[in-house]
């Protein structure tokens, strides 16, 4: 290990090995919990917003425990932007597709014309689809808010 890398390592690990190790172990479980909250929103408290915030908090935790550069290695600014727009596009797109299929705007039962599940089952499915869209947008925006506010708009420098 050269001196250069060594310096990078110490700079990266500002919060000590215990915190870092704990965060390494916790992050995947937090993400799993976020996905569970989104997916189980039909049966228990939860849904897109809540789950999205939990997913976003996983990256925020990485950013706090290590630093912003390392967190952004896992979730780059480009992907972030795409997911944010993509999530909103899923929601609006679902509405428009419903309208184009001959139903009213956001009338999920119209999606029955694509795949026959029954109109009421499609309402349940439609809610799930839009919740996923909401979750993606909220996750990306929460992360990007933290990054931008934490670094004063200069992502490379970070925190």
């Amino acid at each position, binding site marked *: 290990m050269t001196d250069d890398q060594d310096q990078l390592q110490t700079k990266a690990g500002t919060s000590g090995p215990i915190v870092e190790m704990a965060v390494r172990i916790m992050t995947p479980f937090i993400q799993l919990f976020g996905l569970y909250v989104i997916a189980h929103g039909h049966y228990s408290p939860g849904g897109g917003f809540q789950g999205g915030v939990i997913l976003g908090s996983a990256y925020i935790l990485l950013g706090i425990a290590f630093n912003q550069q390392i967190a952004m290695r896992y979730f780059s600014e*480009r992907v972030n*932007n*795409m997911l944010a*727009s*993509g999530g*909103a*596009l899923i929601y*609006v*797109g679902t*509405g*428009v597709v419903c*309208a184009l299929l*001959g*139903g*009213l*705007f*956001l*009338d*999920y*039962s*119209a999606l029955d014309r694509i795949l026959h599940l029954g109109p009421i089952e499609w309402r349940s499915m439609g809610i799930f689809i839009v919740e996923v869209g909401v979750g993606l947008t909220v996750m990306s925006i929460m992360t990007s808010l933290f990054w931008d506010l934490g670094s004063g708009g200069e992502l490379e420098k970070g925190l």
Partner: protein
Amino acid sequence: MTGNLHIYVLALPLVGALLVNLLGRYSLRLVPPLVLGALALSFAAALKVLSGVLEHGAFSYTVGNWQPPFGIELVVDHLSALMLVLVSAVALVASFASLHSVARELADRQQHFFTLYLILIAGLHGLILTGDAFNLYVLLEITSITTYGLIAMGRGRAPLSSFNYIIMGSIAACFYLLGVGYLYILTGTLNMADIAHIFPTVQGNVAVATAFAFMLIGLWIKMAFFPLHGWLPRAYSDAPIGTGVLVAPLMTKVTVYLMIRVMFSVFTPQYEFFQHPGVQNAIVWVAALAIVCASILALGQRDLRRMLTYIIVAEVGYMVGGVWLANSQGLTGAILHIVNDALMTLCLFLVVAAIASRVGSLHFDNLTGLYRKMPLTMAAFTVGAFAMIGVPPTCGFYSKWYLILGGIEAGQWPYVVALVFSSLVNAVLFFRIIEIAYFRTEGDGHVPLPGPIAEAPQMILQPLLLAAVALILVGLATGPLVEQVIRVAVPGGL
């Protein structure tokens, strides 16, 4: 398929906005076609909606195919169809100038600017269509947040002005939400038509009066009605040019439309005007005061854009006063003035964009001798100025005519006097500038303008000329406009 047309008016800019952000990152050349395409299609759909409404009458639409009080209802009647056409037309025309000036001012953040720009337009369309009191709050916040961002992208003082706007705008939205909450606790519903249906049973309650007062004050802050106007002049004059061109003509007018919507769709004219004539009288007096004070404040400005922002505040006084005159002439005048004022402000702010693109500064001293260098721009400015003053062939005359007729019919002399006074002040304001630009020469000891100045770029000049022609055309078409659209839109009971 055609039943969903008005949804496309709203959805096209929204999808366009998301695509601008997704694709604009890879190539900025994709931004103008996306923006213009989305807005042009939206404008075409709005025209189709208006012609459909004129042919088949008003209809209501429920998002998600739920029965009205349970789902969210959208109302497409003559008034909202007219407003849809107005907003989409103004947005389309303004976007040419915005595209040009943003490409110069904020080159590296064009995609962010136009994402917010298109979402703002979608939000305005949503505000016009909605028939649900809480949905109105959400859309009010969408238009506000995008406007905060569009203003904060300016230089210099812009962030500070934007922050003041955030505080005032949030107070306004919170007040409106408090009013909606009180109505919800009393009636158990959020649908405007449903509230109006239950309204007679709760009419005498103090809570209803509280709800009405808070909703009204919230909307007044948003539209910058005189004593609550403090945030507007700074916010609009510090914003980037590309923001002003869109926001100044539309935001306050759409909020006035919302006030009309809330007053006549949720509450009843009987309740507002005739149960407590003292309140109605007082509000007309405040409107008259607003017109006079804002006009006097405009006289003190030495910057073209600052002066126009105070004129906007005065015009809000015209419209609020017209609505509260409590007769159909006044309301007709107010609705007609929404259309006319949006077009006049658009024309004048396009002039601002044109001058800013060539001269840079908008201070009066820098306008010296401008007519020889930018003859077409200044000709359009003159048309816009005549419309603001209210000279007959232009549209500004007709709406003022209706407002004055309404004022006389209601016997509200202070309001009539204020209108005439404000027209005179406008004449002074604009002739002062015309004098500087036409007759003063650089030899009179004034600083010569730096560098050679040519006519404004085509991207601004063409929309500007279009807007100036529209001022005259709308003026000539006032008769059919009033007979076929606005008279039908004026609610009964007046």
